[in-house]
Each structure stands twice: as structure tokens, then as C-alpha cells.
């Protein structure tokens, strides 16, 4: 499914906050249909980069395109074509599952028929159909996160950005969450994910490892392990970080 057609192009991305350089000259491309991982310690600049690509923050300099649109001039077009799930949990706790879906479908401009069809299909897939009138606040965290992801791709975006989506979730739920990601990829959605769990890095098609605002390595997990003579990504990361 992975093609050589880039959906995200980043050239010389720089982001400064005063004297602090959060992103120091980043260069990379993300190809259509792949799972692209952004890995690094907290404060390495992952979230800053993802926020810029989602149009939540403006870069200091650089040339960037997301889904074929220019990041400075065509942010509205970009927003139509991406989904975003932040570190913080992003559904409304006082609304029911159904109401959350209706709201997000509504703000992405989906019509009622389309929304109903997708909602039914999605709830069935998550086995939540009988719970659609439950308030989000009453659900376990794992369910919430799976729902948040499903809602982030409800409008069938070209790219979905996931900023540490599995923080605080147990390993089994994390595995289930990744199954959802694979399903999304099969539908042709490109996934851009940041994480600091090294086992998740293994699930990515390509990973870029960040440290102090720079990309210090970028390749498939297999090649990185060979290159650094490591048996898993954890070792790779420790060797690079050292």
C-alpha cells in the first residue's frame, strides 16, 4: 500500500520560541499510505512539529506541504483533509457517544445520511452500538481513546495526526488501538504518529528519531536496528541518545 507519492513534504522546518529552538531544520517526507513515527524524549520537539503540520502553530521558516497544500497559505484546505488527535483526551465527557460523533461529523460538514452510515458502521466495528447513548465520561479510558481515534478519521481524511495517542493506556488496549490504526491504513489513510513507547516504534513503517529539536535518524525500524546493531528499537534509541 505504501507508495512513493509524498503527502507531507517538510524542507528546512525551523521553529523558535524566543532563543529556544524547538525544531532545528527538519527535513523529511511522508509517503501516502504509510505509518510514519516520530519518536523522541519529552521536549524533543515532536509536538511542536505536529502542531505546525496541523496548522495550530506557524513555523519560523521552512517550506512545508501537507496533503498537497501549502502550510502558510492553504491552511483551510489542509484542515479539511486531515484528522487530529491530541495528547489530551479530546472528546466531550458530558456528551454521549452519539452526540460526540454527531458534533464532529457536523463541524467537518458531513451531511446527515453520510454521518448516519459512518456512525453505524463505526459503532459496530468498535462493538459499541448498544452504548451509543452512554456519556463519554462513564467509559473506560481505553474505549475513549479508541473512540477518539475513530472520530478523528470519521470524515475520511487523507492524513491523520496522532500526538501520543496511547499515553496511560495498558499494553493490551494499546495493541487493540494499533489494530485500529492498521485498519485505517488499509482504507488508504496515511498515519503520522508521535510516541515515546519503543514497542510502538516497531509497528511503524518508518520512524524518525528526534533529539533536541533535530532529526538524528530516519529509516525503517529494520534498517535502524541493523545500522545500530540492536535487537529492538529500545536499544536503537538508547544508542542514539547516548
Amino acid at each position, binding site marked *: 500500500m505504501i507508495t512513493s507519492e509524498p503527502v507531507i513534504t517538510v524542507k528546512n522546518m525551523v521553529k523558535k520560541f524566543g532563543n529556544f529552538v524547538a525544531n532545528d531544520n527538519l527535513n523529511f517526507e511522508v509517503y501516502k499510505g504509510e505509518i510514519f513515527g516520530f519518536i523522541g524524549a519529552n521536549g524533543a520537539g515532536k509536538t511542536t512539529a505536529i502542531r505546525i503540520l*496541523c*496548522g*495550530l*502553530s*506557524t513555523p519560523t521558516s521552512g517550506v512545508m506541504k501537507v496533503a498537497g497544500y501549502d502550510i502558510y497559505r492553504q491552511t*483551510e484546505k489542509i*484542515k*479539511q483533509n*486531515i484528522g*487530529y*488527535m*491530541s*495528547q*489530551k*483526551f*479530546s*472528546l*466531550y*465527557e*458530558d*456528551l454521549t457517544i452519539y*452526540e460526540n460523533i*454527531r*458534533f*464532529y*461529523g*457536523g*463541524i*467537518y*460538514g458531513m*451531511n446527515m445520511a453520510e454521518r448516519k452510515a459512518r456512525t453505524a458502521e463505526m459503532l459496530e466495528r468498535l462493538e459499541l452500538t448498544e452504548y451509543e447513548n452512554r456519556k463519554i465520561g462513564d467509559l473506560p479510558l481505553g474505549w475513549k481513546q479508541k473512540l477518539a481515534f475513530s472520530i478523528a478519521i470519521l470524515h475520511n481524511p487523507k492524513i491523520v*495526526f496522532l500526538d501520543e495517542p496511547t499515553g496511560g493506556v495498558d499494553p493490551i488496549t494499546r495493541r487493540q488501538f494499533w489494530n485500529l490504526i492498521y485498519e485505517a491504513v488499509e482504507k488508504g489513510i496515511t498515519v503520522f504518529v508521535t510516541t515515546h513507547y519503543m514497542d510502538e516504534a516497531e509497528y511503524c513503517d518508518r520512524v524518525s528519531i528526534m533529539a533536541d529539536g533535530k532529526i538524528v535518524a530516519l529509516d525503517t525500524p529494520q534498517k535502524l536496528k541493523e545500522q545500530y546493531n540492536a535487537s529492538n528499537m529500545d536499544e536503537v534509541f538508547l544508542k542514539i541518545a547516548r
Partner: protein
Amino acid sequence: MNRFLAFLQKEFHHIFRDPRTLVILFGIPIAQLLLFGFVLTNEVRNVKIGVVDHSKDYLSIRMTQRLLSSGFFQLAATPSSESEYEGLFRSGKVKEIIVFEPDFGRRIMKEGKAGIQLIADASEPNAAQLIVNYTTAIANGFVKDEFGQNQKLPGVDIKVRMLFNEDMRDAYNFIPGLIAVILMLISAMMTAITITREKETGTMEILLASPLKPIQIILGKVVPYMILSIVNALVVLLLGYFVFEVPVVGSLALLLGEILLFIFLALSLGILISTFVDNQVTALAMSGFVLMLPSILLSGFIFPVKNMPVPLQILSNVIPPRWFIEINRTVMLKGGGLGAIWPNTLILLGMSVLFIFISIRKFKIRLQ
């Protein structure tokens, strides 16, 4: 447009599902109205008095009757000796004792002059002053009625007339101010809290990453509170009119226009606060200190601006309700038109524009 409606629908869900929000929106305005209307009243009505009549002649009895039939006073005691006075005041049985000197009537007729002693419970100085003023006014009125045609009119004629509020009714004073305070509470405080809630829970990020424009997000947050503010303002006006009999002497359309302007100002102030704070608790505290306290204390709502120390008078100039309450009083009670209130209107307009301008600047800096 459908996007915006979806947003509004969500907002109303938030409002009607949160008991605390409902209490603030509907409980507090009604509680304030009742508190100011019935409890914190300074009105003179059925004040318990004691009467000591050492004279017991035609005039002293007639004057006592006049005082008691005025509706302001109620006879609670007729102490026979001075030693009882203190006990009556201490136990709260009376708020004032009126003592007629011996030969009251005869002295008036012969000397054109006679004495009444008024003893008031000054542990509540304002109330005591008010009661004494009322008594004096009624006594003078009585003397004037009795001897109106007579050239040697006894006593000094203290003519007390309270302009625009002949009856010294408190409702006249607090309804215009209460509208300002309630609008501040609902429009500014609730807007600040609801926007910071989206920031705190992280949903603001999701909204900003969606195709919704920032202006649509802000409008979506603000419009429900604008509607509720208008409803609340109308409820206070109607309750004021039907329960407390406070009229709108001036143009109702002008008053409603000014109310809309003030709602706009309060909403922009709420938006401004939300750009400074990141969590609901801080938003609440900031609204409380920055909005509610000055709105109640420095706006002229309770304490007249003219009676404040000069530094506070200067400070009161930057308190938006100060200007709005003046507008309300002018239009509602004096029947003034735009000619009388255009400076205040301009000030409110200027403040709104300033708040919106700073908010937009702050928002842009946040994105950078």
C-alpha cells in the same frame, strides 16, 4: 452554516447538562433579585416605634395618629418612664422613640414653638438617619396642614423631596444596577469559563485543527450565552416592573439597545479573560476579582460613586458597569434619551472595541 448549528447544539448540551452552570445562569440572578429586593432593603416600612406623650392633648394625639397612619411606622411600645428606653432599644422592640414634651399643643398655639424629641437606634446609622428624616418630614407636614392658613407657622418647614424616587424605594436603586451585575456574571464570567474549559480539556486544539474558523469557534461559544443574557435581562426588567413596580420611563427600545451593547462588551471581556488563563478555576477567580467585586462595589450599584474616596472614584472610571448603570438609571427612571447618555454609550463601545482588539492580538501570538 450546518457546522455552526452543530456547534450551537453541542454548547446547549453543555449548558443544560451541568447543574452548576444552570445554577449560575438562572439561580443566581433570581437569588440576587430576591436578596436585594426583600432582604437587603433600606426602605422605611412598618418601623417599630415607641411613643411617649407627656402632653396627651389634641395636637399630640393627632400627630401620633398621623405618624402611625403613614404606613412607615407601627406603634410597638408606650414606655411610661425614661428608664425603659434602653431596654426597648436593646431588645430591638423599637427603632425609634418619639417624645412629646408636656403642654405640646398649648405651646404651639401660644408660643408658636414646641419640642418633640426623637431618639433613634443609631447602631444602624443609615437606617436611623432615614427613620429620623421620615419622622421629621411627617411631623412638619402635619404642622403645615394644621396651621397652613396661619401666618405664624410654627417650626421650620423641612421640605424633603426625593427626586425620581419620591418614595425612596430601594427597588429603583437596585434594579438598574442588578441588570449590569447579572449581565457581567452571565456574559463575561460564563464566557471566560466556557472557553477556558475547551482549552483545559484539550478539545480547543481539536476544534482549531478542524475546518472551523477561529471566529466560528468563538461565536459558537458566545452566542448561547448572549441569548441567555438577553433572556435574563428581560426577566429582571419584567420582575422589576411587575413585582417591584420599577417603571421604564424612557424609551424601551433605547434601553434594550444599550443592554445589547453592554452584553457585547461583557462577552468581549469574557473572551479577553479566556485568552489570559488556561484553566477554569483561574478563570473563575479572575472573573470574581476582576469583574464581580468591582461591578458590585465600585460601579455605583450599592455605593454612590460621588461618595467614594477620590482614588476609588478615578478607578471606577475603568469599571464598565459604572457607565452602564448610569445609562440604565437615566433611561429607566428619568426618561432620558440618547442625548443624555451618548458619552456613556461611546465609552462602552470604545471599551468593547479595545477588548476585542487585545483578544485578537493575544490569539495571534498564541498561534505563533
